[in-house]
């Protein structure tokens, strides 16, 4: 990695200068550990986390609102149950829908929360609330959990993006709000590499190196006049960009073995899961895969056969691979939607929007295995045990990867709670 050549270029020194890169640069003096950028000190969990093994989050967002009854909370034989049967899983006593036979074999790595009551039936609101953990207030923006994770989990020297969104459909980006552009999602549309990770046709790697060398010389000269944490951060971002270009293959799923490509299948979601595995192996802190679409107001059952048929095997394969490769213990997996679907089956064999009693799945890092949290009544129309919502979910995700979700961000002197202060993690779900 090229460094600017001016005085005190020693690595320790740069490491210490790196402290300024975190963002508390603006005006004040840097305090706290490397990479903690702008976080209030006095959050031990946050200070420690970078010492441990790199933690990661994989969030799989099933767009449109997957039916809990056709997935994690089947109610066969009831008026709301629909035609599908419940099948046993690798966890004794835990049953899920027959549409997920492969996933059923992996449930001992995962836990189900069957008691979400998010009091919302709107797609836009659900998307925001489930991924930020905050109630949506007009005119207020909160960072996507991916932005929070990127800010909290990305090591200072890390050149790859800290927050990647792999999408075929669904929203094109996940915002960072007050955390700033550094933490908003880098999007891989249809699994293609992120924007601008390819040099313009005419520009050779050699020429790029040459012009960057020239840039460094201009910077060295200006550093003689004034040098601040900001100028260092800016200079460093170009070094990181060169690093990233050098590792560009990380984004190319085709570099995976024939065998793996076959195991994950040819579906878009299959490819995206394999890509996610590749990125997780390179310690990318946060990845979200959007799988579209589950908004089945019409023929819910045919469409869930198709969509969950696409979801089941690649997802199960990914969970198993992460486990086999020892990545699962440092990777939190979450499968969520904006809401569930109505227990009532409408006259078109459809199910409509339903935030009152639905389910998500979590597993891996910091999450206990094979648990079922909460539950619904006999035909799934109400939560009867342990009501939780998006606030608890995001707290739990962050806590699972060692982030003190009760802490605060200090952004340029303004303080923001890391997660909704009125909520907390689902304690019994944490390992």
């Amino acid at each position, binding site marked *: 990695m090229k460094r600017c050549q001016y005085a005190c270029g020693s690595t320790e020194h740069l490491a210490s200068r790196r402290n300024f890169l975190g963002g508390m640069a603006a005006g004040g003096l840097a305090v706290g550990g490397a990479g903690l950028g702008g976080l209030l000190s006095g959050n031990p969990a946050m200070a420690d986390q970078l010492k441990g093994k790199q933690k990661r989050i994989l969030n799989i967002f099933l767009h449109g609102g997957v039916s809990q009854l056709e997935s994690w909370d089947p109610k066969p034989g009831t008026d709301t149950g629909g035609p599908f049967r419940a099948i046993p899983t690798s966890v004794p006593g835990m049953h899920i829908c027959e549409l997920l036979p492969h996933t059923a074999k992996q449930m001992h790595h995962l836990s189900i929360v069957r008691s979400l009551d998010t009091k919302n039936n709107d797609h836009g609101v659900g998307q925001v609330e489930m991924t930020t953990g905050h109630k949506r207030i007009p005119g207020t923006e909160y960072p996507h959990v991916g932005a929070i994770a990127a800010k909290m989990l990305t090591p200072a020297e890390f050149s790859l993006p800290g927050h990647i969104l792999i999408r075929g459909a669904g929203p094109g980006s996940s915002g960072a709000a007050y955390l700033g552009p550094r933490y908003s999602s880098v999007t891989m549309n249809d699994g293609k590499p992120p924007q601008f990770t390819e040099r313009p046709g005419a520009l050779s790697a050699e020429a790029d190196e040459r012009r960057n060398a020239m840039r460094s010389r201009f910077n060295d000269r*200006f550093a003689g006049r004034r040098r601040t944490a900001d100028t260092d951060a800016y200079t460093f971002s170009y070094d990181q960009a060169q690093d990233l270009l050098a590792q560009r293959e990380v984004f190319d799923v085709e570099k995976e073995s024939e065998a793996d490509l076959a195991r994950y299948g040819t579906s878009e979601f299959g490819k995206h899961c394999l890509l996610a595995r590749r990125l997780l192996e390179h310690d990318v802190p946060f990845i979200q895969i959007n799988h579209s679409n589950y908004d089945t107001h019409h023929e819910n059952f045919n469409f869930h056969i198709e969509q969950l048929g696409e979801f089941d095997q690649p997802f199960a394969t990914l969970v198993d691979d992460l486990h086999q490769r020892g990545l699962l213990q440092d990777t939190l997996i979450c499968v969520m939607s904006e809401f569930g679907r109505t227990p009532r089956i409408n006259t078109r064999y459809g199910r409509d929007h339903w935030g009152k009693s639905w389910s998500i799945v979590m597993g891996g890092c910091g999450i206990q295995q094979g648990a079922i949290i909460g539950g619904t009544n006999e035909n799934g129309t109400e939560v009867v045990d342990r009501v939780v919502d998006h606030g608890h979910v995001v707290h739990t995700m962050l806590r699972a990867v060692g982030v003190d979700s009760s802490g605060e961000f200090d952004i340029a002197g303004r303080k923001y709670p890391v997660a909704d202060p009125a909520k907390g993690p689902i304690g019994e779900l944490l390992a």
Partner: protein
Amino acid sequence: MNILPMASPVRSFLACAIFASICSIAAPDRLLADTPPVANEPLHQRIDAAVEHSAIGPMAALCTDADFVRRIYLDLTGVIPSHEQVETFLADDAPDKRARLIDTLIEGPEFARHFAVQLNVLLLDRRTDTTVDQKAWEAYLIDSIARRKPLDQIFQELIDPSGTDDPATPARKFLLNRDAEPHAMTRDVGRMVFGMDMQCAQCHDHPIIDDYYQADYYGLFAFLNRTTKFTDPKSKLIVLSEKAEGEAPFESVFTGEGRETTLPRVPWGATLYDEPTFSAEEAYQVKPDKENAGKPSFSRREALAKRLSENEQFRRNIANRVWALVLGRGLVHPTDFHYAENPPVNPELLALLTDDLAQHKFDLHYAVRQIVLSKTYQRSCEPPAPETLNLADIRSRLDALTQRQEPLIAAADQLKEQVETTKVVWQEALAVNDEVAEQLPPLEEKLAQSRTAAEKATAEHAEAQKAYAALTQRAEPIQTVLTATKAAIEKVADEPALKESLVLLEKRSGELAAEMTTAKAELDKKMEALTAAKKMVETTEAEVATVLAKRITPERLTELELAHLSVVSEAGKADATARLAQAQIELCQSILDYPAIALSDSEKAEVAWEAIVNRWTLQGQVAPLKPLTPEQLAASAMQATGFLARSQTAAQAAVEKTPPKALEAEGITDEEKALVTQIAVQGEMLNQLRGSVNQFVGQFGGLSGEEFQATVNQALFLGNSPTVNNWLAAAGDTLVGRLNATEQPTAIADPLCLAVLSRPATLDEQREIANFLTETVGEEAGKRPAALAELVWAMITSNEFRFNH
């Protein structure tokens, strides 16, 4: 009182590091002042005096002409100067050339565009919405600034668009961008208009900021919570509608101590005690229904708008915002958090600006002109070298400061007590009225009852009187005949007829006499009752009067509240001064500690020195490095590469093609025509740039008050995006094109530096650039444009270009 909760010197050193952004070193008194600001001097001189006055250690020299020309163009027009503009300015050797350039730019057309862009970001947080067309909104801002509309008027229009008499005024966008949702409006009016982000005080008194109470939040909320978004069914125009009722009750989720209600109250300002009340029929000018937006006879939102200009906190916020718009950072920072623990970096300076701007009708042009005329603005970004420190002087400052510390704290504490007393007085007054409000109803009830009782008594008394009178009339004639009969018998003793009638008459008159006695008795009873009832009425009336007499008038309540508030602000100032004295002491200490550290540990020394320089920067002893905003960066890159001119031509052409409607107005003056056209061109310019700017915004963010962030994506964007690479093309009128036309390798550096860095090249730059070209191009002339593009790119991506210095 605990000024900064810091024990060990180390921690306190860190502490001021942490608070570097919010602490400052204002001299506690005039003893140390070089020269105290004098009211009749121009503002820019008083600014400098205030800064020098609180300065500790050396001041940076004034910046070079080259630095100045780049800085002033960026700050007043939003883009670096063209190489011609640079050359003209550098060639000019008149002593007043800076002042002249300032005036040209402030009067120039781009000024309005640049500040409109900044206001847009400030007011909308870069959120888009479909309620009001973005172009119309930008046009509104440009127009308002170009016509030197006072800032307080702009904010009034944003809060009460109906005040503009144009139902479709784009000013609606400010509140409609928040869906006119009461809490969203309360939060952002608090932030942007008063510099107080009280969101956390929505559900309870602010957990972190002692000065923000739930009642403050709901006081402001009460002005806004009657307002809603309304879509006109016919015109589909989205406007604001307001109801005539709806209070602002709240309950702390922490204490759970029952519900309270607050009257409308401007944050840290007067309560609306004298709100006019209307009968249900008269409550509305326009009653809200399916067809019409509501317009109450008394609009609380309008009342808020009307109260801005006189509100101290509004004035402070405006002064602080304008300073931040030019210097890149507020004297109070973050600009949304005015409160005791976050005092201005220089209270004297903020007070000065606050009063002077208000006196000058919140005129943006005036304010900006004065600020950029100041030495403080024009200082170099190069910090003085450690060697230049006069430690002896610092030491004596330290001694003086230390001596004054105690008295300052004492003074502040004393004022704090006064705050309590004035508060008690005001609260007691309120309590009295509450009491009155409690006692009055039963008394009034009682009064009403006694009045009806009195009427009844009067009636009964009259009745009795009538009965008695009737008996008297009947008795009289009988008496007369009786007497006559007696007389007759004396004359004719033996007349039996007379004797008989005498017996009858005597019997009858006896009966009547008896009846009359009872009637009389009845009459007297009624008389007593009547007197008693009358008495009761009088006494009750008296009671009501005494209670009413206790009631304190709205005028008096406001008086007491304002009295309290003025002590609060005094106490605030004293507290700030004391805190700053403490921080100042710590700066002295860290400067005095520096030489020792420098000898022992070079790395620690560098960190320590950077801390000192940062503090000097905050205090205006050294100019800051300001990262260019996404707008400035995009436009400047285009300016440097020769692409901005194209957009300017395109904008001109577009306006000529479709001239603004306003030009067709009756009897429009040439002057007005010119202005309208100029405003239209600037608006169109934003359109021309929008595509590129949005790409830069996507990468560089750029919310107001956002912390600086350098990201890999930004580097990748500038490195590999088609947009930026097109700007490196070698067409005739582009920079690379021009340079390519210049044969001599050594002749490249100057035009390159002038275009990109707004300065001539240094000698070694000339050498370096010439070498680069010869090495890269070699014998193959075909490679030359590519090599030049590399050079231009390397400069555009350099720190010198990225920052305003």
